[in-house]
């Protein structure tokens, strides 16, 4: 057990160290997130009133796109000099690799969200500082990253890896995203909790199912 956690920690440490060297993933995710917000703004000429009801949608679209970038990069690094083989050759359980990568990816995604949220709140005056909303963000990110890490591991072994991840990932995680958008909307628009609590439940259920299934099939993804 100790060595199990130690190995997970080693993988997280490795990802954070490599990222600290270059800060490439984080900056790219951030810049891209801000870009998406801007594009929405331009393309849709959002004004403050429209924002009210759209904020949740725009925010989650932003997180989702930024998340894909992070996931893609994180797995590309593993494949670069054959490192994924290196991990697979280590005498540790496959789940170590899965959880190590999931936690690393989650950390990146949360960091980006922590920066984007205040900025967005500042730009559009949306009341993001609510514990309930933060919970939704956390839950949504967990579900997204749990499936995303699995698929990224798969995609990186595929010839068309440059493009496949969002195509596979977006439609699949839609239940999580829709639930997260609806629950976020509830908090941001101050709707009574009862009216959207079912979305929060759906979110939790999907998180559990997705994480459990992803964990169970990860073995099959990395074996050859």
């Amino acid at each position, binding site marked *: 057990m100790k060595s199990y956690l130690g190995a997970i920690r080693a993988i997280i440490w490795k990802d954070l160290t490599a990222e600290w060297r270059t800060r490439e993933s984080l900056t790219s995710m951030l810049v891209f997130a801000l870009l998406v917000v801007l594009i929405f703004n331009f393309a849709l000429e959002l004004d403050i009133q429209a924002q009210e009801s759209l904020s949740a949608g725009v925010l989650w679209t932003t997180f989702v796109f930024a998340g894909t970038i992070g996931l893609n990069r994180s797995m590309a690094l593993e494949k670069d000099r054959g490192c994924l083989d290196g991990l697979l050759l280590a005498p540790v359980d496959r789940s170590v690799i899965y959880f190590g990568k999931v936690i690393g990816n989650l950390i990146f995604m949360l960091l980006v969200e922590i920066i984007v949220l205040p900025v967005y709140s500042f730009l559009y005056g949306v009341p993001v500082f609510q514990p309930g909303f933060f919970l939704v963000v956390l839950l949504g990110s967990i579900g997204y990253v749990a499936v995303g890490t699995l698929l990224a591991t798969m995609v990186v072994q595929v010839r*068309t890896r440059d493009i496949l991840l969002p195509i596979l990932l977006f439609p699949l995680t839609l239940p999580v995203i829709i639930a997260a958008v609806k629950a976020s909307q509830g908090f941001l628009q101050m709707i009574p909790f009862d009216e959207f609590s079912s979305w929060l439940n759906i979110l939790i259920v999907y998180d559990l199912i997705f994480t459990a299934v992803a964990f169970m099939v990860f073995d099959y993804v990395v074996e*050859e």
Partner: protein
Amino acid sequence: MIKKPRLLSVLDVLSGMMILAAAGLVFFYAPVEQMMGLVQKVFYFHVATAWVGMLGFIVAAVAGIFYLAKRTEQWDITGFAAVEISLIFFLTAIILGSIWAKPAWNTWWTWEPRLTTAAIVELIYAAYLLLRQGVDDPERRARFSAIYAIFGSISIPLTFVSIRFLRTIHPVVIGTAETAGKGGFNMDSPMKLTFFFSLAAFTVFFVDLLWHRIRLGKLQAEVEKLRIDTYSNGM
């Protein structure tokens, strides 16, 4: 060569006859619905094709589970066949739905949850095909598509959930009975009979097609193996 099984031939005939009979029922037996008139006849095929689509996606997921457990090529062929067929049926359902929508809602398409989620389910399985295409090694291809089919089937329930949780103009019949939703209609018993018969007919048709497609898949595998031998003898 695999000989064509007797049962399959029987099934061919049966499904053909059932489809014809269903069409007969739809056009000559079932009454013309008062509010919508003739277009309503699309209903029987719309629902039947949507149902068969869903069925195939679930078959694919089950085949996926079996593939991961058993690792026999056969399950991969089954999963792939089911997805291919269902993709077409489901697309048909969407197209029929939108033909119906034109008179019913006065538009070909509207963005409401059921339709949108239906479109997304279609995309999930289009992505499935893309995934298969991107992998050269058949063993890996089988593994990845099995996994993806399993995840896809987890996402599907949302299409059913969505119409219950969201305001929608797409009617809900199954479960909530009768006239739920705007624009739904009461089914009298000839309608019910026709409805369930066409569901059955399409289900049989689906099984028949699936069987054919699986056989085709196996033949392809066979041909590949023959190619191997000539190829490696030539080396």
